[in-house]
């Protein structure tokens, strides 16, 4: 019996190893099935120009890259603006009020075999009162499955395909800079520039953030291209390395975009326009190592300055002070009082060490003129 079990175990291990090794994540999504070869953006989103009352047809490809057959929901929604001005899609439960309502899918649920895809045709009809400019909606692809009650936050997932529609008419393409905020976070600076789209179509803007020293030296610069949606204020969080030495720095940003009448993905006859955003003076704390170095240097400079002052003062005293012969009953304090200087200064200039005893007829140096100010400290 033991022998049989051992054999089965060994075979079991051999069979199980490949299964575990090739276990992969699921992959359910979709893409435009008929992208326009002249517009690379149409490989990932739908880009359409539709006049009021006009209808266009297209097809979405629903992909199941998992190893089992899936039932997948395909549904249209309006777009919404997510925090920070980012593009997002409304939920199915939100209802349809705008572009989501314009889209009619031939199917709302498809069975997709493992490692295959299914094409779902749809139409978009712009209503007669469609406002000129860009309107956005979404086609969402989501696995249909039952969920059981579980305490806490339960997560579902979906892939959405943006449907960007240009309704012809009076088109305005413009963004204006808003502000930049800077937050320090451990060894990083988070620069958050924001811009507002004051036009009626979205703009793909190259946002550049720069950190300069007060002398104008560039410490860091980053450029990334993001969409700025129609009518929205959009911000981003750029993480850059904190300047090692700390101190005052100038953070600024600019945005460059194509101000021509090109719509999404159209790169012909671009008219680049750059707008500069505000700059902000920020104090950056130095890194720990930099702080220690800076503190040591600071202390060194202070100590050095003190000794330099003493040296220069001594040199001056050597030139201006005169000889004085110590009389009976004189001591450092009485002489210092007469000359209106500190007894410590008198002792130091004459290299007199503790216990500060003077001998009668001893010659010491004293100021030639009596100082106007009296010494603040007296020898106890």
């Amino acid at each position, binding site marked *: 019996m033991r022998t049989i079990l051992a054999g089965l175990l*060994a075979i079991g291990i051999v069979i199980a190893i490949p299964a575990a090794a090739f276990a992969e*994540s699921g992959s359910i999504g979709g893409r435009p099935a008929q992208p326009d070869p002249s517009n690379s953006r149409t490989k990932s989103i739908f880009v359409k120009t539709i006049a009021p009352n006009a209808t266009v047809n297209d097809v979405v490809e629903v992909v199941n890259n998992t190893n089992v057959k899936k039932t997948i929901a395909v549904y249209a929604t309006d777009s919404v603006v997510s925090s920070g001005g980012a593009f997002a899609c409304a939920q199915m*439960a939100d209802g349809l009020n705008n572009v989501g309502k314009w889209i009619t899918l031939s199917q709302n649920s498809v069975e997709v075999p493992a490692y295959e895809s299914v094409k779902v045709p749809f139409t978009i009809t712009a209503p007669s009162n469609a406002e000129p400019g860009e309107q956005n909606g979404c086609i969402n692809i989501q696995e249909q499955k039952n*969920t059981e009650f579980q305490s806490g936050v*339960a997560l579902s997932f979906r892939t959405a395909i943006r449907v960007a529609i240009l309704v012809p008419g009076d088109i305005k393409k413009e963004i204006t800079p808003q502000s930049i905020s800077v937050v320090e976070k451990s060894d990083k600076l988070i620069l958050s520039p924001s811009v507002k789209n004051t036009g009626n179509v979205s703009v793909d803007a190259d946002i550049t953030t720069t950190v300069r020293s007060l002398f104008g030296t560039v410490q860091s610069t980053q450029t990334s291209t*993001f*969409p700025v949606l129609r009518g929205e204020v959009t911000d981003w969080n750029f993480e850059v390395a904190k300047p090692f030495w700390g101190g005052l720095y100038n953070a600024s940003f600019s945005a460059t975009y194509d101000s021509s009448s090109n719509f999404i993905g159209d790169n012909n006859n671009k008219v680049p326009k750059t707008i500069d955003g505000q700059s902000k003076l920020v104090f950056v704390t130095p890194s720990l190592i930099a702080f220690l170095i800076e503190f040591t240097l600071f202390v060194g400079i202070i100590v050095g300055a003190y000794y330099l002052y003493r040296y220069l003062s001594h040199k001056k005293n050597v030139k201006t002070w005169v000889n004085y012969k110590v009389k009976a009953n004189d001591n450092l304090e009485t002489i210092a009082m007469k000359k209106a200087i500190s007894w410590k200064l008198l002792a130091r200039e004459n290299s007199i060490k503790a216990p500060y005893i003077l001998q009668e007829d001893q010659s010491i140096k004293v100021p030639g003129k009596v100082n106007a100010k009296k010494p603040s400290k007296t020898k106890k």
Partner: protein
Amino acid sequence: MNKFTKVAASALAIVGVALSLTTVTYAANNTNVTQTINSGTLVTDIRDASRVTVASPTFAMAGTTFSFNCQTTTGTIGSASQRLYVDNPGAANAGYTLTLAATAGATGLWNNAGVSQSFDFNDPTTAGCTDGADADAKGGQLTVDPAAATLTADCSSCTVTGITKGTATAYSQAVTDSVTLLTAAAGSDDVGRWYLTGIGLSQAIPGEQPNDSYTINLTATVTAS
């Protein structure tokens, strides 16, 4: 070598020979080998450390005790064993956004199993502690903090350059119904796989909320720009 080991070794040898023979048979029938790699799509889901999809991921909030006063409970989305992944196999060359919203929409609620008790996730009145002017009669507000999360590139050729994490944001009905977790710029890697761990959650629970287990369903959506 004892008997047990001998038998195990024999079985392995038999399986090995069988597999070898199978390979030889197929090789003889395929003189022209073709291989097709299907293009993938932009996807998001939760996977474990071995990148296997977690079927029904749930993230517990810290337990609290009944209180007559408003209180806050915290939690995180994304851990070492439940990572929030985004795959872009060249399907979104102009970047993408990853957002999080209540599946039930702006009128969603935290509900108990029988849906007899609930509280809100998007009522900003007194920081979520009391009910405001929205249609429901519930207080409560959920804040999501993607800035606290760690973003990791999980492939040999991809980096996190050009991908920005969103700012900590509280849901507010009809004002903020969706929170941005990630925004990938056009210049970010066209082919890449990334995951987030440690997305902060903070929920204000109104005073006198009955003790029970509550759940809310959130949907993570990835959209090409």
